[in-house]
């Protein structure tokens, strides 16, 4: 155990800033969605921020991520420009994807965010291919593939873990287990309690991680990344977490399929609180950060609002290279 027992306060504040950045961004997205400014569906990761931050903290700039429909946090943490993200969510021409991707398909290839994939589970075979390309090109990168618990019940999970393990590909598979797929609980959908145990079937490490604790996530991902870079192949991490909001479309946080009690018990473990407690941060200490973050987000919203709608002719662009 050579890790320092006590992190410097600045480190905690830095991590706090990242967590609260995603939190405030998504609260704003929710607000804009309810106002009809953001259209379609938005899947908020409020409650799950520690995974996005922990993952990105364990990666180098050159590393790659494939995420899911719930991918705002990952995209932002990978370094995407907040303004371009907000503009994309609003469908504007200045958006990351010129207004053609939207919330569910937010992509910033230059920053290594290869995509938020809207089809549940489909990122896994793609990440396997990214891993193969990395290995063939000998670039030393790692590809992190995020997916939900529901995605882990489908065939692509098994196919991809098998191939990635067989070929020792530098991929880290990370299940963000928030216990639900839409309204269906893990209890009704999974034959096993821990998804991580499935790693055994493919001879890769399977690790259950406290997904509410950014430092725990970072540590686990760091180990998996090292293993991948060392040429030892993939890992499967299962981050136990919880979404504090509904699935999408502004549906309620609790109601027919989960109880208020359950929701409240997870709220006690809010990643922001967990970090503040660990670092001994007081509300006073983070006030300044909160203000700054809110200001940045307002600026991004303004940028998005002032941005032009895409030219109709752009609908016919980017179909073929």
């Amino acid at each position, binding site marked *: 155990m050579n890790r320092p027992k006590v992190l410097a306060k600045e480190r905690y504040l830095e991590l706090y800033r990242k967590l609260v950045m995603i939190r405030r961004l998504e609260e704003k997205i929710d607000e804009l969605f309810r106002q009809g400014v953001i259209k379609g569906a938005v899947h908020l990761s409020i409650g799950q921020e520690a995974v996005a931050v922990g993952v990105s903290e364990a990666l180098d700039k050159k590393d790659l991520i494939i995420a899911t429909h719930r991918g705002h946090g990952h995209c932002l943490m990978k370094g995407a420009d907040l303004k371009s993200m907000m503009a994309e969510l609003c469908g504007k021409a200045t958006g990351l994807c*010129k207004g053609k991707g939207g919330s569910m398909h937010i992509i*910033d*290839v230059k920053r290594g965010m*290869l995509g938020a994939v809207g089809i549940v589970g*489909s990122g896994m075979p793609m990440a396997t*291919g990214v891993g*193969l*390309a990395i290995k063939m090109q000998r670039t030393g990168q790692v590809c992190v593939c995020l997916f939900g618990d529901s995605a882990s019940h489908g065939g692509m999970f098994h196919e991809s873990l098998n191939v990635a393990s067989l070929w020792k590909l530098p991929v880290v598979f990370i299940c963000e287990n928030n216990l639900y797929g839409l309204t269906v609980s893990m209890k009704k959908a999974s034959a096993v309690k821990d998804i991580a145990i499935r790693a055994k079937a493919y001879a890769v490490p399977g690790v259950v991680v406290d997904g509410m604790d950014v430092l725990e996530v970072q540590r686990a991902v760091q180990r998996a990344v090292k293993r991948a870079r060392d040429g030892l192949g993939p890992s499967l991490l299962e981050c136990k977490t919880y979404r504090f909001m509904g699935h999408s479309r502004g549906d309620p946080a609790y109601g027919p399929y989960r109880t208020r009690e359950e929701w409240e018990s997870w709220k006690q473990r809010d990643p922001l609180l967990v970090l503040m407690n660990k670092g001994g941060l007081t509300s006073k200490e983070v006030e300044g950060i909160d203000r700054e973050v809110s200001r940045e987000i307002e600026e991004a919203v303004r940028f998005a609002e002032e941005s032009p709608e895409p030219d109709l002719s752009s609908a016919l662009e980017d179909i073929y*290279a």
Partner: protein
Amino acid sequence: MRAITYAEALREALAEEMRRDERVFVFGEDVELGYAFTVCKGLIDEFGPERVRDTPICEQTIVGIAVGSSMIGMRPVPEIEFCDLLTLCMDQICNEAAKLRYMSGGQVCFPLVVRSPAGKWGSFGAQHSQTLDAWFMHVPGLKVAVPATPYDAKGLLKSAIRDDNPVLFIERKLLYQIPGPVPEGEYLVPLGQAKIHREGKDATVVAIGRMVSLALNASETLEKEGIKATILDPRTLVPLDRESILASVRETHRVVIVEEGCKTGGVGGEIAAVVSEEALDDLDAPIRRVAALDTPVPFNAALEDFVLPSEERIIQAVRDVVSF
């Protein structure tokens, strides 16, 4: 000119492109031994197991690997052993490969080629005999090539590998062992350019894949009756060489479209629509489509022949449009 088979022509294309560009690699089920249709046979000797790679049986992940690896700079050419199995890969082909460039506002491209054989093999039954070209023609963002001769097989595959878009390269099982003239050395057949195999003023027969040789045989019989038909092969369905088809129809005023897939929702329906939208006034007869009957392909050989298009049906259709 030397004659080599369709399979050999494809193998030459793969080998030449792998030599030319180290980002090109092939993988799939049984490719190391080139078992199923021999196309990849022997490639491993020259290119080694990193670039010629057997996979487990997991079709959607095979295509997914192509999507992911092409996204960051490789040029994968996976083989899907039978085109019927493309049903298992529809998500990766249609939702990922064909969409992500668009959805990302042009940030990525997918220079991948999925090779897969379609059509009759002879009593292989309904799960190993389908021709699904039309399904993929319906997906913007994909290109679709269907070579009919060894010459086209080689030239089109080389172009497909160099193309920066996902290309579905749909071969034909019964053509693999058929030889044809193929020049030594390098040449390309561009995607999106039809080929006129034979010119005649009485009717245009648009034939696809294995149907080209049936149409050519049919045209010989027809010629004895004094009917001269143009045999035109679009070679790629996306992009479709509409201009060549329309130009030919404007000369012959009659058109028959021949495909091995079934009629309803088929390629012929699309081509017929193009002709009627753009050249209705030039037509002197209704458009005729010769296609498989709308049934699964049966096992029994006589039943199989009955449901699939035949020379005889092509002859009938041409006679029909000419005598209208």
